[in-house]
């Protein structure tokens, strides 16, 4: 994923090092070169072919030179700078306005590929490295105590909203503190990534502060014992409930809920004191012992999902319960 140090900067790594692009992962060329991963993008991006060539630093060539092009591609990685300059020169021979259109198309295309890439195994792994390094910032909410956030989009369609930060500690989304991120499209991260990250890496200790080095900050063995609704109990909104709700006070006295300006939003930051209240399936089974769905209900009883989930998580070195293919083919979904 990271380019070897000898070669000049690729379009991808220069794009990712731009100011405001700190949240982006470097999509591997391997991922982009697999046509399956690009399915449907052709119709969403203008000058698709040129944009794709730009992303891959391929020299624009006529179709008949296809073989030669491949050769040159290899040369490029070896010879480096000269090739780049040459290709740039060639690019310059295009109409200037054309080039800026391609450039913006390339950014759009890269963003859309990025949305898919970060949900693939390689991509989410790369994002987890960035998460560990604290690249995505921390939650501004005081009671979350600098919990790390994840970049998400509120829409998968480009042009609708900018990138937001999802805090797993309070399950809310925030505007990035720096205005430079207000030009980054949220669709380049997509709606799925945030939640998928939590499911893929259930063992991160979500309460770890952004300033700390995260290496090895995993849920402890004790905490692993408690599992609820497919997540570790200690990782279900650790920043909510209990003492982590603000109670408005005037001279030490709580403002009443009945007051015109009284607190009305405590539910948003609430969490049951006893988390087993959220085990809806078990509670249903307890409340309806004679229910017709008894078989189904009892299947979801406490023990079962644990047994089913655990061995699976041990399998991949990424610790992913999601069997996502290397090339991100989410065909099953």
């Amino acid at each position, binding site marked *: 994923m990271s380019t070897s140090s000898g070669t000049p900067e690729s379009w991808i790594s220069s794009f990712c090092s731009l100011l405001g692009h700190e949240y982006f992962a470097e999509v591997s060329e391997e991922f982009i070169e697999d046509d399956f991963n690009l*399915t*449907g*993008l052709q*119709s*969403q991006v203008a000058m698709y072919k040129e944009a794709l060539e730009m992303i891959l630093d391929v020299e624009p060539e006529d179709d008949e030179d296809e073989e030669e092009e491949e050769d040159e591609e290899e040369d490029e990685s070896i010879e480096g700078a000269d090739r780049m300059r040459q290709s740039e020169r060639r690019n310059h021979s295009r109409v200037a306005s054309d080039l800026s259109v391609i450039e913006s198309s390339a950014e759009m295309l890269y963003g859309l590929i990025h949305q898919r890439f970060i949900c693939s195994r390689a991509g989410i792994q790369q994002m987890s490295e960035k998460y560990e390094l604290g690249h995505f910032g921390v939650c*501004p*909410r*005081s*009671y979350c105590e600098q919990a790390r956030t994840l970049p998400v989009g*509120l*829409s*998968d*369609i480009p042009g609708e909203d900018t990138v937001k930060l*999802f805090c797993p500690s309070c*399950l*809310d*989304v*925030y*505007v990035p*503190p720096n205005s430079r991120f207000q030009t980054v499209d949220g669709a380049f991260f997509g*709606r*799925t990534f*945030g*939640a998928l990250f*939590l*499911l893929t890496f259930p063992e991160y200790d979500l309460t770890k502060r952004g300033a700390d080095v995260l290496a090895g900050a995993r849920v402890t063995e004790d905490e692993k014992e408690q599992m*609820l*609704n*497919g*997540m570790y109990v200690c990782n*279900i*909104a650790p920043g*909510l409930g209990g003492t982590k709700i*603000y109670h*408005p*006070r*005037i*001279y*030490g006295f709580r*403002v009443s*809920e*009945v*007051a*015109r*300006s009284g*607190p*009305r*939003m*405590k*539910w*948003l*930051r*609430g*969490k*049951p004191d006893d988390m087993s*209240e*959220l085990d*809806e399936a078990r509670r249903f089974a307890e409340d309806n012992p004679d229910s017709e769905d008894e078989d189904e209900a009892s299947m979801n009883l406490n023990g079962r999902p644990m047994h089913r989930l655990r061995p699976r998580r041990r399998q991949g070195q990424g610790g992913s319960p999601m069997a996502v293919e290397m090339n991100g083919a*989410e065909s099953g*979904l």
Partner: protein
Amino acid sequence: MMDEFASESDSDYTSYWRDWFISSRGNEYFCEIDEDYLTDRFNLTGLNTEVQYYQYALDLITDVFDLDCDDDMRETIEKSARHLYGLIHARYIVTTRGLSKMLDKYKKADFGKCPRVFCHSHPLLPMGQTDVPNQKPVKLYCVRCEDVYNPKSSRHAAIDGAYFGTSFHNIMFQVYPALVPPKSSERYIPRVYGFRVHAPAALIRWQNMQRTEMLRRLRKLEVESGFKNDNGEVDLDEEDDEDEDDLDAENDVLIEGTGMNVVG
């Protein structure tokens, strides 16, 4: 620099030190305290034990400081003056005049805007988590989500929260109840490929239940809940479901949209 201030302050009736203080970088959260308030000793009751060189510090704040002293001393007094100003500030901003000054700043969003996406940049108010000085830095309160946030900038994060106090922001909305924005149950729901994730979704269902209960309690007491959609008559359970269904329908379309792309 301070000589300049001290010498000019006598001739002018301007509040030189305070002007300088509130306009200096990092002090954007403070409002200017009236001369009248500062000169009424009653308002300063008890502060003389909190602040070193109390009298000099007060003189500096009120621009009547004329002590000849070395730089170290001046520095100490200057520091005391800033601390004293902060402590008086906490008292001043809960007075009628102080509230209206802070209200102006609030309306201009001088204290920043709520970072929560669904608060749609609602202005914040500064607050302290304790009234005891030197304990906790200033935080920002959003009246829309009723939560507490850290200031974005590190220069604000160093301000003592006691300079604003634990009551000010709540008094503000007691005095100006019309300022309380309509509450909204809009919120983020974590999803994977359009499907809600079980654990957060179960928590969200529980939270919605809490809200419904609260609304029911308030309705019983015939208190306005402040929620946009609360007509008092509508069954809230149903309303919630409808809201969710609407959202779902929307999302289904989106999913199908992307699904089509992937397949086609």
